[in-house]
């Protein structure tokens, strides 16, 4: 039973690491640079409205306004500049939320899998309860409770997604705990916490690293979904999700308002996941 439930679709895909690793890393590097230097790279102020320049098409179409390469939205804001500034929010959420989720989830998983006993029972029950919540609804609920803002999004992601790490790390810590090297360390009289941190944890790091990369892609999507439902950061700030929400309403008049953030989001999520898969193939004997 356990093996059937533990089968995550992602772990079944086996392919060679190669160009996709470099392509993903390349795209993510471009995004990082754009985010870091957004005020200097972006051609316009992402918040500057100009109602005379509303819904201008991208540069190759008739009626395009020079200087607004990817067109403007219905308030006349520059789509390219908003995309570049949106990368800041997306990457901040990916890095911060991903890392904290990883720390919380991996710690709980490690404790449950290594210490077993009542710790394991409590954490496993918590995982069961968490899994029964529909994640999107849960995150929307949390944002409603916490109020909008970057910090709330990060808390929501951590609160919801820690189970992704905890489940895998718990199972793996249990498998490692049954191995000979752990019993030898126990016979040698090493303290349990020492064994957990010095012997077991290093063997789990590749797995945790891959999960972290995948989680960053998920965090970007969660942020986009929350902005889409309009519960994310205050609506003035440029985020990819709020751009998509606006593009969805104006889809028949100005498709570019939806298309460019969608392509950006698509490539980013794909890159995080392909980077994770690539790292998995290279470094991780467990998930592979």
């Amino acid at each position, binding site marked *: 039973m356990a093996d059937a439930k533990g089968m995550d*679709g992602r772990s*079944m895909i086996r392919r060679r690491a190669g160009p996709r690793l470099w392509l993903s890393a390349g795209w993510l590097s471009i995004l990082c640079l754009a985010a870091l230097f957004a005020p200097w790279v972006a051609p316009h102020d992402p918040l500057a409205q100009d109602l005379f320049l509303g819904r201008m098409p991208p540069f190759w179409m008739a009626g395009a306004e020079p200087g607004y390469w990817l067109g403007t939205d219905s308030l006349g804001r520059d789509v390219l500049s908003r995309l570049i500034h949106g990368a800041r929010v997306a990457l901040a959420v990916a890095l911060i939320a991903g890392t904290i989720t990883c720390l919380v989830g991996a710690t709980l998983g490690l404790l449950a899998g290594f210490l077993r006993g009542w710790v394991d029972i409590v954490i496993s029950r918590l995982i069961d*309860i968490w899994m029964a*919540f529909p994640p999107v*609804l849960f995150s929307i609920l949390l944002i409603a409770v916490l109020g909008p803002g970057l910090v709330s999004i990060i808390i929501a992601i951590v609160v919801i997604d820690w189970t992704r790490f905890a489940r895998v790390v718990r199972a793996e810590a249990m498998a490692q705990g049954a191995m000979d090297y752990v019993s030898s360390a126990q016979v040698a009289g090493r303290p349990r916490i020492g064994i957990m941190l010095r012997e077991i944890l290093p063997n789990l790091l590749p797995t945790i690293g891959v999960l972290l990369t995948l989680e960053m892609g998920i965090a970007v999507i969660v942020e986009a979904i929350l902005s889409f439902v309009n519960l994310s950061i205050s609506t003035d700030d440029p985020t990819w999700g709020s751009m998509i929400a606006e593009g969805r309403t104006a889809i028949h008049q100005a498709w570019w308002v939806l298309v460019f953030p969608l392509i950006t989001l698509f490539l980013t999520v*794909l890159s995080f996941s392909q980077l994770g898969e690539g790292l998995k193939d290279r470094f991780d004997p467990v998930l592979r």
Partner: protein
Amino acid sequence: MSGRQRTEATDNAVIKVLATRLLTTLVTLAGVAVIVFFVIRVVPGNPIAMMLPPGATEEDIARLSALYGLDKPLVTQFGIWITGVLQGDFGTSITTRQPVLDLVLGRLPATLELAIMALVIAVALGGTAALIGTRFRGGKREGAIDIANGVALSVPDFLWGLVLILLFGVLWPVFHISGRVTPSLDLPFTTDFYLIESLIRLRLDLTADLVAHMFMPALALAIPLAAIIGQLLKQSLKETMNLDYVTLARTKGYGETQVILREALRNAALPTITLVGVQFSFLIGGTVIIERLFSYEGLGNMAIDAVINRDLPLIQGIVLLFALIFTMLNLIVDLLYAVLNPRLRHG
């Protein structure tokens, strides 16, 4: 081992699984009930104040709060709610003032029809991909299918929904991208299972309209699941193709396609079926945002509205129903696995 002992062993294994799983299911549901109840009560803003017109006095607010039991201590409120739930009373929605159970059961059929349609599409797409990949294994076509699977799996349903809206709603508008049914149509239905009822009543014009509305959101939900099915089924099929009995079938002169369809598929299907059961429960969770995206009038869309309107009893009811569906599906999968898996049966 005699036949009788074997059935007893089967029964014992099934009963054991059933008992432990029922117990954990109850713990899970109780946990969900507690968490959702207390989490949403931390929400700032009084839902009663939001209901009343501006200019309502403190007294009005207090009176209405008392009517909904919101003036009592939290633990007492929880006790009242949970006692009601156990008796089938989920309270009254604050925004619509209708019983929560009626509202939720009115929307559930729309979500179930969407989820089941997505499942059917996922099995069809994933199955086809696996069969083609196995038939042409080692070749370029298998490589192409692997890449498509990889992309389909990496990108979540929310983004697939947006891509589909652009492709088949705007660029080549063949499907509806909003709503469940064309509003101007006259609906003769007596239940909320529109699609099923339209088929039973042989109103195929309505069926066509419903499918044209459902197909895009269902496909968005189906794409990631199809990739999972395609990947696992192909792997099992390829393993099965090397077994002796398949080689025997080949020497009897069956063609490769026939061998795959007639001999290998039946044996390779079991792991996929188990996985589909588990993944289907995740797919139902995905309906929340997909229904929002396509303005589809199901449970998920109602849930988001309930959160925005701070309709506490309605939120509680919907979350509990989702949790119930999720845990029941998992329970069924575990039981099926106990019944179907010979190792567990005789263990």
